[in-house]
């Protein structure tokens, strides 16, 4: 089991890295080189594509827009999900099971179904083309997910913890913030990771609900690609830059990945 054991994961990682390498390769090439020849690494190494993105406001504002609504969404989703998950993990109440199931069905709602109604709804309430608007729209699938993940982690915490705290004279808010939240820190990390992930990678709703002010980087990419033809180098550089926040987030949760992906339920 020793040597072939390493072979399979290594081969898989090489397979995963190939397209990313190709994107990286393209991002350092000039348009001439891309269209003119087939090269396995950049012969005329250039930073032009990155310089263009980082200096042109059309590009970098898209980047900032994306980060803004993703962060707003992550915070919002986790904050509203926390008390709800606590309620589901600790109490029985009228319609609790149906409510939980209904929440989860929203995770199954295809964004394609909601794109048009969302456009009408968010235009009507004046949230069209705002960061908060996109963040709110993404709660459709992130809040149910966050509730579900957090509920799993909270159910793993024995109820005696709550009871001991009350006996020791803690009020509920103080218990919740001082004792309970630190106990499920790993769960909050994992929930935030998933919210960040699904908000960051989503394009359909983000693109539909924005035009100029809050246009995400991913939408800029699709529009640039169609408008100015074949600027593959620029596209590749923009793509590479969208990988970076994800890589950062993974790095921070790397210690939770092995256990956290079991979502506290195994």
């Amino acid at each position, binding site marked *: 089991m020793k040597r072939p054991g390493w072979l399979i994961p290594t081969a898989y990682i090489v397979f995963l890295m190939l397209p990313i390498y190709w994107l990286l390769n393209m991002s350092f090439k000039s348009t001439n080189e891309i269209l003119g020849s087939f090269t396995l690494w950049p012969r005329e190494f250039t930073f032009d594509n990155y310089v263009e993105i980082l200096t042109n406001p059309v590009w970098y504002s898209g980047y900032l827009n994306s980060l803004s609504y993703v962060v707003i969404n992550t915070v919002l989703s986790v904050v509203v999900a926390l008390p709800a998950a606590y309620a589901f993990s600790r109490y029985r109440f009228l319609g609790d099971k149906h409510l939980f199931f209904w929440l989860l069905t929203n995770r199954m709602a295809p964004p394609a179904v*909601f794109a048009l109604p969302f456009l009408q709804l968010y235009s009507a309430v004046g949230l069209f083309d705002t960061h908060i608007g996109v963040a709110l729209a993404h709660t459709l699938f992130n809040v149910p997910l966050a509730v579900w993940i957090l509920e799993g982690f909270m159910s793993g915490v024995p109820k005696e913890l709550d009871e001991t705290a009350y006996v020791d004279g803690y009020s509920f808010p103080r218990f919740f913030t001082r004792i309970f939240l630190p106990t499920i820190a790993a769960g909050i990390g994992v929930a935030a990771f998933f919210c960040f992930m699904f908000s960051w990678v989503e394009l359909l709703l983000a693109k539909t609900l924005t035009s100029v002010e809050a246009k995400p980087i991913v939408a800029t990419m699709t529009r640039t690609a169609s408008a100015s033809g074949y600027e593959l180098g620029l596209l590749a550089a923009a793509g590479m830059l969208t990988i970076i926040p994800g890589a950062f987030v993974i790095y921070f949760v790397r210690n939770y990945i092995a256990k956290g992906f079991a979502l506290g339920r195994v």
Partner: protein
Amino acid sequence: MNKTLNQKAWFFVLPVVALVAFNAVIPLMTVVNFSVQETFGDNVFFWAGVRWFEEVLRSERFHAALLRQLLYTGIILAIEIPLGLAIALAMPRRGPWVSVCLVFMALPLLIPWNVVGSMWNILALPDIGLLGRSLNAIGLEYNYTRQPFAAWFTMVLMDVWHWTSLVVLLCYAGLRSIPDAFYQAAKVDGARAWAVFRYIQLPKLRYVLTIAILLRLMDSFMIYTEVIVLTGGGPGNATTFLSIDLQKIALGQFDLGPAGAMSIIYFLIILFLSWMFYTLMMRNEDRS
């Protein structure tokens, strides 16, 4: 855990209910509204009853898209679940390299979906892409913008690239939670690798595998962005899955009635499949 009855718990769930209701109920009502009315523009609507539903359910175009969707979901599940499981099993149980492996594996999951599409677009281009060029160099005729089979091949490969890691991470987390004593007992009992897998690992992975299949089932039904960027649903309609067809009708042709009806049918199909799969897994659970 035995939970206490407490109706005040509703206050805790109220923010979530309000938020999700705003996002889900109002748009869903809008869709339902579209689906039972007819319009000739200018915001004038007429009652259409279930006509659009009948039309959608009878249309060959919808049947074709649904069939493509089912085939696609079937193929990627058949590849990603066993492959992900196999990779998770091959991973070492501990050691400094494990978290490095996991970080690399998780990377595709955090790349925006259109970037995934663009990335594979660039990779698969027959003239300047690594994949396309290589396949053509070894004598295979490959052009995913013209050949339906090549388009499907690229789509499936892209999905495997994008999502197998999710299965790996879930399975790996599940495997890690099996106590060492089980492996030791199996060793003492003289169990071979296959028996360890069949009688220890597989039963213990049941829950995470259910989640993995459920997530991939749901998400593959919703696939949109990657396809639009990579193939645009083509060549012809070869990769026009349900969500792409829906967008063509709704935003392309602005046929709100049929689009609304199709949305609801589409949503119900996902719900039904997920529910069916879930109850199937859980019924087996009860029996054990």
